[in-house]
């Protein structure tokens, strides 16, 4: 059996099981910990697909930076006492989930007939690495969106500072 296949099945099993844990754990700390498990499994899947840069960024940004935000807020907000899962909405969620899955399946089947239209085939990626290919694309064709993304991060930073000020809430 191929090592690639073993990696895919084990990592995707971990990802789906811990995603279920994120949704169904009553304690929010357990939910965040299984979110970390999901993110690391997804990063392994990126490495398995051959997208090394995205896999490394997934660990660096998601599994470290963003999760630290969540842990910080959870440690500030005291323990949540209400019921974790609203039973009234659990039945309601089934048709919506089914509709969404059908939509995604339609889009995926629609993409079945297109393949290999780009220039970065396996032969090309043997010459230039994946990191170099993504970075070249990022800093030439997508340079303007890259700059806009940095402005969005600046706006988010200022917004978080303003929202976090003590005197924003009057009563």
């Amino acid at each position: 059996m191929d090592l690639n296949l073993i990696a895919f099945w084990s990592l995707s099993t971990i990802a789906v099981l811990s995603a279920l844990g994120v949704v169904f754990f009553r304690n929010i700390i357990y939910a965040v910990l299984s979110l970390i498990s999901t993110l690391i499994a997804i990063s392994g899947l990126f490495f398995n697909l051959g997208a090394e840069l995205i896999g490394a960024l997934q660990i660096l940004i998601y599994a470290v930076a963003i999760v630290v935000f969540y842990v910080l807020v959870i440690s500030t907000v005291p323990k949540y006492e209400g019921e974790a899962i609203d039973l009234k909405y659990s039945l309601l969620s089934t048709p919506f989930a089914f509709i969404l899955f059908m939509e995604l399946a339609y889009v995926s089947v629609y993409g079945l007939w297109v393949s290999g239209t780009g220039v970065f085939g396996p032969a090309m990626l043997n010459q230039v690495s994946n990191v170099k290919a993504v970075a070249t694309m990022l800093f030439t064709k997508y340079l303007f969106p890259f700059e806009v993304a940095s402005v969005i991060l600046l706006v988010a930073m200022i917004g978080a500072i303003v929202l976090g000020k003590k005197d924003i809430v009057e009563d």
Partner: protein
Amino acid sequence: MSVSYEYYLVLSGLLMVIGLIGIIIRKNIIALLISTELMLNSVNIAFVAFDIKLQDVAGQVFVFFILTIAAAEAAIGLGLIMAIYRMKRDVDVTKISELKG
């Protein structure tokens, strides 16, 4: 590639549906944000899988942008949660009903 890309798309769809169910059924507002992160990650998987199939790298560039937006969203969302907590002393979504007409 020995694993065909359809498997990755099925995994991506499963994670997206799990995230949507989490958003609908949870009542803790932090859990809603965490479920949103799951949905963003499923989109990332679909982008990279289609990238491998189309032999392109544009999708990976977009995954980079999604990571940026996710970081901004986490910062703003958690700042809002802190402001809501200071005002209401609670993080239950059913208790936040100031805008109810």
